[in-house]
């Protein structure tokens, strides 16, 4: 999967590396800003009231 993505990135190796880093950053941002905030209220230790 990752090898396939790498092969389909355009440009020479430094450019590919840069794009790869940007892609990873975008995925982390999506997780941190959208998916985790949605998931987090379902954690058991957020129930603190009686």
């Amino acid at each position: 999967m990752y090898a396939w993505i790498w092969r389909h990135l355009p440009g020479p190796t430094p450019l590919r590396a840069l794009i790869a880093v940007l892609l990873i950053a975008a995925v982390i941002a999506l997780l941190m800003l959208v998916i985790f905030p949605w998931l987090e209220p379902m954690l058991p230790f957020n129930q603190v009231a009686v």
Partner: protein
Amino acid sequence: MSQRQEPGTDGGRGAGYLVVRTFGELLVTAGIVVLLFVFYALYVTNWTSAQLQSESDEALTERWQEDPGPGQGTSVLPGEAFARIYIPALGEDYRYTIQSGVDADALEIGPGHYPQTAQPGEPGNFAVAGHRNGQGAPFNALDELVSCDAMVIETDRDFFVYRVLPLADEVGDWDVVRDGRPECAGVPSLRSVGDNEPYGDTIGRKIVTPDRADAVAPVPYRPQDTLSRIDQAALITLTTCHPQFSDRERLIIHGVLTQQIPKNQVNGDYHRLLDHIGEA
């Protein structure tokens, strides 16, 4: 692994190899995502909450400066701060605003007040919930409190000093236990109030199941009408989850009001208040 083949081919290893490798990559990715989530829940939420808390603190200071008139809590919106809590035993800089309400949005900012319970200083039960892990975790170290530790509530006009009630193993011979502990001078065991020991289940620290909503009742663990309002002790109740990282039970801290100190008596300064109550 040596790279004998030109990059971009799989060396004719066949579809099975590709499937297994992709599956492995997905598993490793899933593991990293889970680790990231742990990092998010325990650290990133702390940063967001710290930001919200400091905004809330500033807004509260501003509101108190703007409106020094009599009366309080008349126009507090859900999620809005109306008081501060200090617990000197958990650090000199332990200070959070208390929001109205115990829903997720209020608790993300800091500790939240159960809206149907008493206001600070009133007879009855001033009850506050707070996170133990993540989201600022204001009540993380609540289990470290011992009897007579101070919990200070600041409102627009007063500091209310509550102290943790005797713990389960102390309440039996409280007069002996507290002998020689000046901080316990004003802390009653509440065992001689009224008939049938209305406060018989009220001790400093309790672990209860999550369905015990009566932990924040005016007389804890008793029906609403157990005592008339005038006979009720002025209590504070702090609730958080227990054990850590679980929602199986709740950790409950009960305290009793020992002092009310108008803010102008100590210049509105928390550190002068600590001097005044012998906690500095």
